[in-house]
Structures are given as structure tokens and as C-alpha cells.
């Protein structure tokens, strides 16, 4: 079936099988491999994308469900001039990235969190990122990165 949606600001029109996962569409057809697959069961959060601003596990989402939606993947964050998004910059500067496999999902969940709640408490950050597993960092620097990003953004449009 033909579906149409907006991905990272671009209009996409693509023919998909009804049973195709959004994750496979994004990775294999749109070649946006920044979205990672860690478990295929919605347990790890590596495949997080934003659908109309809401974080979703793209491994649990069927591609046809993207019809008419606005989606953001990690590739949609960097500015046209190559400038990093303040959240990306914060993750880098705070040392919140080790192997980096969970990072795209973490950053997108952070983006959704900060849009909803520009100055989250630690507990609110934990709640917001509880669907994203990281095995490397111990999370402490991820919390710091989110706080730093919140400070940098100060509720500006993200």
C-alpha cells in the first residue's frame, strides 16, 4: 500500500507491505540507519522515533501507521549547517555516550521529554527515559546531559 508521511521535514511517499515494521521501513527503505534495533520487542528503546512528537518504539509500530504522521529520527536533529542539536551537544559534552547504540533513542526520548517539560526534575527525567536501556554509562551522565540540555534550551522551541 502507498503511504505518505513527513520524515525529518521531508515528504515521503512509499509503497509498503501491510505487515512491514516502521523500523524496517526507516532502516531498509529510507536508509536512515541511525534508528537501531536492539530487541524487536519494545523492551530496550534503541529504535525510538518521534511520531507527532511522541516517542514510539518503531519495532512495535507497523509502517502503515505512519500514514499522515510527522516523524523524526535521529538524522532529523542536526541543523542544515551541520550544527548539532543542543541535546546532541549536551550528550557529547557530558560524556553521556559510550558505545552509542542506545544514544539515538535516548536523545529522541529526551527531546520529547523536554518539549513536554522544559525543566524536568531528576525523577521526571528518570520517568521520561525509563523505556531506554543503556548498558554502558550507568545513566548518571545521561541525567546530567538532559539537565544540561534543558538549561541550554530553556524552553525554547525544540
Amino acid at each position: 500500500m502507498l503511504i505518505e508521511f513527513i520524515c525529518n521535514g521531508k515528504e515521503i511517499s512509499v509503497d509498503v507491505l501491510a505487515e512491514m515494521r516502521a523500523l524496517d521501513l526507516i532502516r531498509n527503505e529510507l536508509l536512515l540507519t541511525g534508528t537501531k534495533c536492539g530487541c524487536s520487542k519494545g523492551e530496550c528503546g534503541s529504535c525510538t522515533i518521534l511520531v507527532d512528537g511522541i516517542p514510539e518504539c518503531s519495532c512495535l509500530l507497523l509502517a502503515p501507521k505512519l500514514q499522515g504522521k510527522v516523524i523524526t529520527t535521529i538524522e532529523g536533529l542536526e541543523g542544515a549547517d551541520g550544527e548539532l542539536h543542543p541535546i546532541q551537544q549536551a550528550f557529547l559534552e557530558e560524556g553521556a555516550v559510550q558505545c552509542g547504540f542506545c544514544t539515538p533513542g535516548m536523545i529522541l526520548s529526551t527531546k520529547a521529554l523536554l518539549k513536554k517539560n522544559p525543566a524536568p526534575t531528576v525523577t521526571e527525567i528518570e520517568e521520561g527515559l525509563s523505556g531506554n536501556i543503556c548498558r554502558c554509562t550507568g545513566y548518571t551522565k545521561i541525567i546530567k546531559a538532559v539537565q544540561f540540555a534543558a538549561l541550554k534550551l530553556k524552553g525554547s522551541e525544540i
Partner: protein
Amino acid sequence: MRNQELVQVGKSALKVDGRELVTGKAKFSGDFNFPDLLHGYACRSKIAAGYIKDIDISQALKVPGIVDVVLPKDILGGNIVGILPPYDQPVLADKEIRYAGESFCLVVGTSVRAAKAGARVVIATIEPIPPILTIDEALAKDARKIHAAGNITVSKKLIKGDCAKAFAESDVILEDTFETSNQEHAYLETEVVCAVPYGDGRITVHASCQSPFHIRGHIAANLNVPVANVKVVQAYTGGSFGGKDDTATEIGSLAAVAAVRQGKPVMISNEREESIVGSTLRHASRIHYRIAAKKDGTITGKEIKILLDGGAYAAESPFVAMKALIHSAGPYKIDNIKVESTALYTNKTYCGAFRGFGVPQVTFASESMMDELAKKLKMDPLELRRKNALKPGDLNATSQVFQESVGLIETIDKVIDLNRSYTLPSKKQDRYLYGTGFASMYQGISNGAEGIDVVGASVQVMQDGSALVGIGLTELGQGSRTVFAQIAAEVLGISLDKISVKQVDTDTVHDSGPTVASRSTTVGGMAVYKAAGEVKRSLLKMAALMFKTEENNIILKDNFAQLVFDENAKIPLNDVCVAAYWTGFPLMNLSFSKAPEAKYDQDTTQGNIYIAYNYGTHMMSVRIDKLTGEVKVLKHLAVHDAGKVVNPKAFEGQVEGASLTGFGLAHLEKIQYREGVIINPNLADYAVPTIKDRIPSETISIETYNPTGPYGVKGIGEPPVSGAAASFANAVAKATGIRFKKLPITRQVILEAINRKK
């Protein structure tokens, strides 16, 4: 290097590969795409033990999209993986199934979906046999032999002094048995390889892996081609922690065999369940511990028996058993020690390297016993540790002496000091129990008893004054590329933004062995230091000609060659590089670092083993809810002597991450079996710590100067696992008054114990 003023080393440089990672541009193995890419999917046994009678692939070959099914007979080389002797593991099980999850054929199709559909209709006739599932079953006199040589993989001894005498003359003897469970690595990226016949007469494998040289050797052996025909390139690797060593050789060989058969690229990407059941775990263990001491707290003897459940194949069991053996007596000066460390086969998923490598298990036992001894002697647990702690000049368990860089007492003193200013909340509230636990540990740096420790590195300076660093050790998230860049930058006086560090390509650098044993910064760093030093000689020689002075009057700094005595007299380094090139001075060097060799007695394990040790003391304070068993970690101090710290922020990251893994081992994570089949092979039922489980780790570094590492460095990747796990166990014991002797000490276990005690 000592007392040298440092510009790059010691600074929290940003991760050099961080930009690729935060933008999603970093290419992991699963991100490779080729128009004719095929996918392999393994058929795996559902039972733990059995004889393979027949594998019928006829239906599978009829499934649309299936192009091939690889059987054991199709592997033209040895059909063998295994990093060490006894090399007992087939790539594909041929006659016998030894664990549930073992693969016996690989279905190759045009898509993952097709390959899985094909795998579903492979008909395997496997005659079940009663599996051997526990240490006791494996050791039973009449036990079936899992391998021809029996059920003991390896057994090693450490003998120092006269233990019998020490126990006879002691004032106090304590004795107990401790157990630990299997732990899964649970890196976020599962094991993935992509084998590509690029049409150059060779086979190239892009791999998520820890030890590319191991993979290269295994691929060549299984393809029956010269090693020189195989190239392994590490892709960005989404965590490893020891787990992508053995397993990557297995699927790397399989993908290569399939790719050569088809003349097309083949990817194997393990699913999460495969990653848990079909790749290594941390060894489960049973440790019997006896300790003899004088009334004043002097520990006079230790007698320890370690049994490691290694699962179906040897994998790295021989080395893990050795490391557990060496570390089991703890970081103390003890004159009489007798240890036996044995790894066993059982019909379960095979065990191998996992961050800590046998040390977390024995440290849990050792440090639990230290607290029990302190209790018995009515001594302060930190005082007891301090009294027995290794100092410079002392003989450790293997009678190795380090004259410097033994900072254990400093780590204990730091904890004593910080604990003094920390008070646990009032115990008056009925609902909660509070307690603080401590643990000291040490961990050998370098391959040590595991054999030769060499690393190759290359440094190439370009005419524009930038530099490319190559190295044979892998970046797995721990930040080694950044550390190597910092060391090269320090030597060459080039700023970090002009330094690029390649991922490992086995074609371009000396076989550097595996990326293990917390040795990257120390031994790998030394290789980079040496290579950069050679190139620096060319630059100094050229600059001396340009300045018309002697080389020792020149330093390289901030992308300039400048005169020592006049910092305004300087030439841009790129000008020096251009001149050096056109004068014919070499601007590239391929260097080699070899750690001092281990020399020890094979029967007693006495002698010089590691080139350095990391020492640490942890403190953990917990609050336990008596009604629910819930544990909250209120405070965690991780104090380590890791030598000179190259990158403080990355150092903290290593301590925080390893500590949470230790906490998971001690409190949350447990592989569960039913009849030898893992019943929680997913991230919902197997509890990897989430952000809500995080602990408030504070990292403190006690810097000593280690003469065997560049700039005095040691390593930090693994040690905190042991410290966090053991201090957690002691904190819970302190809070509840109950000694828990088996990891994990879960909320449920705690609650049940509290209720029993009531």
C-alpha cells in the same frame, strides 16, 4: 614521562567518535547494505543435550527466497571455534547437542524474513539425552562425559607458604560457601557480522567484535584458506564487555562460509534471544572459603576452592579460572594461601569473558568473609582491610612485588575519611533498615598469565600537520580511541581536532590479540606512544634544521615547533611536516609494544604475572524497605588507584557503568533455566538495570605512577564491577543482620530472609 607537564593527558577531552554517535551516522555492522545482501539465520536446538540423528533441509530449500542451507559438512576447514585449547567447540553442532540454543545449521535467504521462514521448516531429529545441569551433576563420579576428556575443563592451583601450619596456629578460623549466578552481557547491539567477498580474491568481514584477530584466524581455519586471505574490519560496536569475543568468531566464520559459497555478502545479526542463549555468559560459581587469622586481625592463611560452571564449551574458561585463582585471596598481604580453581562443563550456554573475568565472583566471597572476620574479631571492617592491605614492596598472592603504584591503602583511607562525614539517616523509622558496606579489591592489568601481551600501533603525520592513528585494539564504547588520540596528541604537540583514530583493520596493524584485561590504555597506549615518538623524531630533526639549532632545544606544542627558551620563536607544525616530507624524513611509524612477560611456576602459580594492578575500595549505603524488600542505594563511593587518569570524564564513565553492572550482578540479574533451557531470554524478564535502578556512584581517583604504562597509566574498565557487587552484599548484610551467600541478592530474597528472621 614522570613529572612531565602534560597538555592533553589528564584532560576530559570529548569523545573523538562522539559526533558520529550522537548524529546516528556511525556505521554499525547491521547498517551495512549491499544490493545483493543475503541474510543468515541459524537453526538452534531447543533441548540441552542430545544426539543429532538427521537434519532434513529439503523443505527449507523450497521456501521462496532461500538460497542455501549451510550444514557442518559444508564448513571446509575444521568446523571449530574456541580461542584457547582445548578448541572443543564446533561452529555448527555436528553429532551432539551440548546446550539449548546451540546452532546446527544456517539458513541463508534474500531477507531475514525468508531465512527465518526457511529455518522454521528445517526438520531436526535429535535424540534427547539427560542433560548435566549443575556443578554437582558434572562432578558426580558416574557422570556422563560432555566432552571426551571428561567434565573438567581446567583445574589450576595456587600455593604460597604453608597453609596447614597457618590454620593450625591461628586464633580464629572462619569458613563458608558462596555462589553466584550467570550474568548476561546485554549490550544494546547484539552480535552482528557482515561477510563480503569484494572480488579481490579475499574475504572481508565487517564485525561488531572485540577481538578482530581472533575472528580472522577462525575464519581462515574454517574456510581452509590462508589467514592472509582474510580481512576483518571492526565496525562501530555497540558494547561488548567481553561478550563479542568468542561469539563473533562463531558467527563470523559462519557468515564467511556462507558468503564464499554464494559469492555474495552475507549478514548474520543475532536476535536478542539468540544473543542471550547463544553467546557467552558470566560464569556461575561456587566458592568455598576458609580464612585463618590472629586475634589482632592479621590474616595468616586462606584456603579457597573455586568451582566455575562454564557451560557446554571451554571458550575462555581456562583463563577465567586462572584469573579467579590469582585474585581470590584479595588485595591483601597474606603469607599462606592455597587455592584450587576448577572450571566445569555442563549442558548450558557456554561462559566466557565478562567485565571482571572471574574477579567479581571471588571478590564477593572474599569481601563477605572479610566482613564476617571483622564481626568475629569485633574490628572495624575498614581497619581490618587496612591492616592487611598490600603496600608497595609487599608480596601479593603470587609473590609478585610492586615497588610502586600500589595505592590500596590510600583508597581505604579516602573511604574512611569520606565515610566520617556521611551519616546514614536515623534508624528510628520502623519501615526501613539502613546499612553501609565496604569492599576492597584489586585486578591485574595486562594479559598476564594468559600469554604474550603485544599491541601494534601506527602513527602517520600528514603534510598539513594532522595525524592518523591506527591500533590493533577495539573501541567498544569505553573511549579507547579518545585515549589513544590524547596520547598521540601529547607526544606530537598536535591538537586533538587534527588527530583521527581508525577503527581496527587487521590488514594494517600487527596482531594485537584481544581487547581485554583492562590493558588498552596501558599496553595499547604504550604502542601509540612509541609510534608517535618515532614520528616526532623526524619532526624534531626537521625543525632543528629549520631553526639551525639542536633537537633538544625544540618542543612540539599547540601545532607548532617552538624553541624551549623562546616561546615566540615558533614554526607552524604543518610547515615542518611539509619540509620533513620533502627532505625525505619518515612521517609514519608502525610500532609495537610488548608488556613484560609473565614468569611464574605452573604448579603453584607463584611469580610475576601482571604488569600492574588496579586497586580499589568501594563503599555503599543502602536503605531496605522491610515491607517490600526494596533496596535503595543512598550512597556509593568508588575509589580506585588506576594510575594516571588520561581522561577524567571517560574514567568516571567507566566507573559508573561498571559499577551499575556490578550492582546488577549483585541485586537484579539472573539467568533462569528450566531443564537447561533459558526461560528469560529477553530484556523484560531478564532485569538489566534501567535508569530507575541507577546508583549514585561517586568516582574518586587516587593517582599513583605506574612505570609500565605511558605517563603512569593503568586501567579501569573492569575493576569497579567487583567493588560495587561486593560492597552491595556487605551493605545488605549490615542493614539486615543477615549474611547472604548467593548472588543475586534480589528484593525477593531479601524480603523472604527478613520474614524468616522475624
